[in-house]
């Protein structure tokens, strides 16, 4: 089976069996049996998905059939004008963005973009931006500020690209600059982690007035694999590292790093793109409508205070 995670297997096998039985439903009068099996699948799904380990959530966040930024843009917006380039160096394909309309509201929408197959993944650099990606994002945000449009960012990256040119062209400076400029941008910013939120590469477009995560995503300072290789000196401890890092939406809500968890359909976002997009759309509209009422000076102050509160220490 293609693109099926281990813990999805029993569910998908049962679903396939039901589909098979449906073919003979009329001839054999097995409606009852099908009903029983369907209940069983539902219970099984509920059981599996309510008890996911942190590592399993990481796997779901990386599921190759999950909706990506452009899928959401397509499903959520009525109109979209994609804009390209950082005006200094190039156009990074791992970050996309442009003006869009959501239910009559004009916004700037920006996100990391992964590819779905080898070819598109190479084109998108697996969703790992170079400095020009962060600089493009900043240019678009400044444009949004100039025309008073709220900014929506969608985070989904395995990390900023650790390459030779990326370093040479100032990967660290590009991310740092975005953190500073986003923290004082005069229009509302709503951030949603839609897949992987890996470290500075994610945060580089992740400073905002509302920070939200889809239910089966992760957000942390390092990926479980890299954490395992550094602290355990082996790649084998990724499950333990995922547990230790407390990187799920529920963890981050508890740590007061995010404001809200966006529920996914039972079985994960990849099982029903449209349903996930609708939920996200409704929540974005709700947050947009409340944030646009706040005056820009106050908005910037509230944003500063929001991040000022993050951290746990003893005195």
């Amino acid at each position, binding site marked *: 089976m293609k693109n099926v995670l281990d813990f999805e297997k029993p569910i998908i096998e049962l679903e396939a069996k039901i589909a098979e039985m449906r073919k003979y439903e009329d001839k054999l009068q097995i409606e009852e049996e099908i009903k029983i099996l369907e209940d069983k699948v539902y219970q099984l799904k509920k059981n599996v998905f309510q008890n996911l380990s942190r590592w399993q959530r990481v796997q779901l966040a990386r599921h190759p059939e999950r909706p990506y930024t452009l899928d959401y843009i397509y499903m959520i917006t009525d109109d979209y004008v994609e804009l390209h380039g950082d005006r200094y160096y190039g156009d990074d394909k791992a970050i996309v963005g442009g003006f869009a309309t959501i239910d009559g509201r004009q916004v700037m929408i920006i996100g990391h973009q992964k590819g779905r197959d080898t070819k598109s993944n190479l084109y998108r650099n697996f969703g790992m931006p170079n400095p020009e990606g962060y600089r493009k994002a900043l240019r678009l945000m400044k444009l949004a500020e100039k025309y008073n449009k709220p900014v929506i960012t969608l985070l989904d990256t395995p990390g*900023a*690209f*650790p*390459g*030779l040119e*990326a*370093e*040479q*062209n*100032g*990967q*660290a*400076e590009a*991310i*740092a*600059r975005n*953190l*500073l*400029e986003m*923290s*004082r941008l005069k229009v509302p910013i709503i951030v949603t982690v839609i897949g992987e939120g890996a*470290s*500075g590469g994610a*945060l*580089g477009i*992740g*400073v905002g007035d509302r920070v939200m995560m889809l239910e089966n995503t992760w*957000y*942390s*300072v*390092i990926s479980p694999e890299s*954490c395992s290789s*550094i*602290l*355990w000196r082996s790649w084998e*401890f990724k499950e*333990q*590292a995922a547990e*230790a*890092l*407390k*990187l799920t939406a529920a*963890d*981050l809500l508890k*740590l007061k*790093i995010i404001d809200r968890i966006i529920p996914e359909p039972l079985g994960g976002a990849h099982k029903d793109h449209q349903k996930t997009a609708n939920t996200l759309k409704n929540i974005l509209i709700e947050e947009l409508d409340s944030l646009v009422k706040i005056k820009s000076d106050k908005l910037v102050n509230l*944003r*500063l205070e929001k*991040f*000022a509160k*993050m*951290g*746990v*220490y*003893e*005195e």
Partner: protein
Amino acid sequence: MGWFKRSKENISPESQKFDIPDGQWIKCNSCSEIIHRKQLELNAWVCPSCDYHFRIGSGEYISILFEKNSFKECDPKMKSGDPLEFTDTKKYSDRIKSTIKKSGLNDAVKTGLGMIGNKKVSFACMDFRFIGGSMGSVVGEKIARAIDRAYNEKIPMIIISQSGGARMMEGALSLMQMAKTSARLARLDDAGLPFISILTDPTTGGTTASYAMLGDIIIAEPKALIGFAGPRVIKQTIGKDLPEGFQSSEFLLEHGFVDYIVNRKNMKEKLSQTLEYLKK
């Protein structure tokens, strides 16, 4: 232990470039010159024969840069709270305890107020020997407060970075310290107040990708390792060896990310000279 094993620690590559070893006579890591401790101290811990910069801590930087007895430390007691109850091969809380005991520091940054020449400045200096100078909640909060002091007293902010990046054991909380400190620097910038960032060996990861790269003026010590991703990770990604001098201070100067490189012996003088221009 086998009879052939080297027992002296400073022979292994890991221990090189670390803090000054004990004893009166110190061997330079670069040219192997034997130097007397007092001489090295008077020379700002720079080798008199080859200009190798020994890695030093916040205490040494304070004595090099500040007028005698002018530096007042702030928030010295702040300690990490282990919010994730993090455990790898060792409990984070134990790691903190033993590092505090070993280093005599409470976390990886020292902050305070003091005089450089006749100028009062708010100052923060990181310490690599505290868990690789990593930035967790304590480093983020202390630096944020130091920036607030600069903002409130309308004085310049100076940060010396020396860090492997964000601290893994505090997960996303460490990551958010990057946003927290950068937001405070934005406010300082809006108020028209100066921020000078000094990069020393090594400055990498989340530290570089936040305050370290946000100075009005960015200064580096010679031959420091400065970058976002570590050299090992980049080497793995591109599958070949890195060019000579990649991610060095000189490399960053060449590519436009550092204003100037300064020998530590001249740092105070150059800093004072620069500060003279950063006012209206």
